[in-house]
């Protein structure tokens, strides 16, 4: 009896259910056609004079970017991107202002680049980075930069090789010649005990277009200064971030120079506390191939290669020393991750100095122990283009 009653009830419920799901078809709550989207390719964030945020976005114009689409009328003409800007007190606030000007829904899913203007960077970037970690659309893998002058100027650059300037910035970061920092990395840097960050420094060269030139160094979330390209190399060596590098040395006792292509390198930071003295030993090993040799040195001679290896290591040491002098001694900002290293090895001691790390940091004695290995002389043995008898043995 009860079962019969329940069966009836079940059937009625089933009918209601089905009706309910008929309604499903009418509602497409989150559906957006691809033609109603404006894809954000790059974002620039600047400070306005009245302490608000000026948000500029680089939007793609699919009509112009689509390449050769038949019959749709003159593809490829016109700019492939457009830059729009708006101001507001937060990024999202600025975005909603921006939306008033853009006929399509602004879509952050393809934003790959976030550029902070110099003025904003000096003022602090923490409050602006939150949006990129909280909103579900933007990506944690977007690369972050600091630009000379205003970020919007970078976005407005019309590129020659790529489709958009944001694409250039992304590809440059991908190469990892300089620093390459994603939103996630930035969040981690800001969160770590060292209270510092380093972002690649993007500048516009009037003749050459965009260029990554050095690194902006942050204390907490405020930019304190920048270091140039050469010093950035030193920074990269210490951070174990060297991926694409050529090292050119001018060997002693001979004219000309030799270029090496870096195959792989490994940096190990070994913290040590000896009698209350804080030491950091950076152990660097690199493997290189020779790619160019305009000296008269025979690269097949083990003795010469041994010598060159030493000079190569010295060269790296020099670079690192230069960087340390500026960043550790003058700026007193720990962008190398020394703090983390000490934290990992000496958690108790770290606990004590955590509060005044910026005072302790410059006192750390850094020992650099670099080893270079030249693996191959390239495709040639002896120097090319000179007579045999001039080759130095």
């Amino acid at each position, binding site marked *: 009896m*009860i*079962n019969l009653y*329940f*069966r009836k*009830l*079940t059937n009625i*419920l*089933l009918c209601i*259910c089905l009706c*309910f*799901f008929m309604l*499903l078809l009418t*509602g497409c*709550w*989150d559906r957006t056609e691809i033609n109603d989207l404006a894809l954000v390719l790059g974002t620039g964030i600047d400070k306005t004079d009245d302490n608000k945020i000026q948000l500029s976005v680089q939007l793609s114009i699919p009509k112009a970017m689509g390449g050769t689409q038949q019959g749709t009328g003159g593809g490829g003409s016109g700019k492939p991107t457009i830059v729009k800007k708006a101001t507001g007190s937060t990024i999202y606030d600025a975005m909603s202002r921006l939306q008033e000007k853009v006929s399509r829904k602004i879509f952050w*899913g393809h934003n790959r680049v976030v550029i902070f203007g110099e003025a904003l960077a000096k003022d602090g970037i923490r409050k602006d980075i939150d949006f990129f*970690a909280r909103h*579900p659309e933007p*990506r*944690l*893998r977007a690369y972050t930069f600091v630009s000379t002058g205003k970020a919007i100027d970078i976005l407005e650059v019309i590129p020659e090789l790529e489709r958009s300037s944001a694409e250039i910035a992304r590809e440059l970061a991908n190469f990892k010649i300089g620093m390459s920092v994603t939103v*996630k990395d930035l*969040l*981690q840097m800001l*969160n*770590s005990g060292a209270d510092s960050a380093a972002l690649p420094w993007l500048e516009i060269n009037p003749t050459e277009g965009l260029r990554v030139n050095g690194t902006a160094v942050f204390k907490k979330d405020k930019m304190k200064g920048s270091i140039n390209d050469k010093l950035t190399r030193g920074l990269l060596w210490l951070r174990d971030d060297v991926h694409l590098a050529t090292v050119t040395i001018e060997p002693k006792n001979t004219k000309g120079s030799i270029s090496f292509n870096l195959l792989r390198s490994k940096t190990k930071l070994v913290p040590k506390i000896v009698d209350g003295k804080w030491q950091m030993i950076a152990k660097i090993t690199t493997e290189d191939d020779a790619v160019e040799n305009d000296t008269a040195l025979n690269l097949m001679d083990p003795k010469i290669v041994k010598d060159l290896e030493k000079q190569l290591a010295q060269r790296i040491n020099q670079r690192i020393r230069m960087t340390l002098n500026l960043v550790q001694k003058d700026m007193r900002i720990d962008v190398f991750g020394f703090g983390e290293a000490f*934290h*990992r*090895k000496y*958690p*108790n001691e770290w606990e004590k100095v955590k509060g005044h790390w910026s005072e302790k940091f410059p006192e750390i004695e850094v020992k650099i122990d670099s080893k270079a290995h030249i693996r191959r002389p390239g495709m040639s043995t002896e120097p090319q283009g000179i007579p045999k008898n001039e080759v130095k043995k």
Partner: protein
Amino acid sequence: MIEKSRISSFQMAIMMYPTILATAILLVPSITGKFAERDMWLSPILASSIGFLNVFLAVQLNKLYPKMTLIEYSEKIIGLIPGKILGFAYLFFYLQTNGIVFREYGEFVVGNFLSKTPMIVVIGSMALVCAFSVRGGAEVIARSAQIFVPLVVILLLFIFILLVPDLEPKNMFPIMDKGIMPSFMGSVVPASWFSEYTLIAFLLPFLHDRGKGLKWGFISVFTVMITMVVTNMSALFLFGSITDSFTYPVMSAARYIDVADFLQHLESIVMAIWVAGTFVKISVFYYALVLGTAQWLNMSDYRTLVLPLGFLLVIFSLWTAPNLIEMVHYLTTTWVFNALTMQVAIPILLLILGKIRRKRGTKVGSTRND
């Protein structure tokens, strides 16, 4: 018996895997991370002890009353009226818990993907699909689990492997710099998830190879533990100290994947396959609830209860909490005590009472067949 189909203990193990894991990789890593920080990968190992205990308890109780579920033998052990009251408490607990699971699922989908879709549509459609499988009985849930679980495992492996280039194992150190306490604290919430292994009390009577129940139960707990360690580790290795600042760290990790500029933004696929795991989880809870209710009411068939209880579940899921914040707060505080009392303390008491009863029963010499 009310359920006619039979499953194997291997199928039971495979059903329980997503039953614990599906929601345990959402909010739990973040909650664990808050307490345990760098030691968050240790917490699941500690927490799994509760899982092993629960499997042991359920199997022992099942040995006393081989063909009965939790609802039925609690009546036998503590008498009809108290048993009914306890049974009702259990049913209510599972109703509420399943409501929470539904809500977690809904919150996750709406919060990350379909922000404008009404919650009731997301939850309701899932409820209907689950009702469909629960009507099919334990056998159908077990078989669909066998199809989906390999998918979920492959998915987790896939996330882990694609993340390898970005992982930094040094984020793990220093291990236990503040002692074992933080990881112990962090293990409390996962432990309440592991205590859901009590659900096997509803499946054990239907095993055709009951002798292997304990073995496969333990294997299941172990694999869940390993999986949680691995997912926690991958989140930790990727995010380091900021792991706990994400609501769904594993999901955020999946979003970070980028291989060759082509395999990127995989979170939607990850979500879709994860939904399959959640489906198994909800179905198992749903099934226990429906079966338990039918037994509590002494009905001969449970199928008629499926839809009405489904409606109740959807409503419970909407009532559970006003927002995600409250829900996380509930999960870290009240829920832990609730779950551990219902799923650990009471089964222990039942087992002790049952053993005593069995001893007395044999002394008096009364013959009783279960």
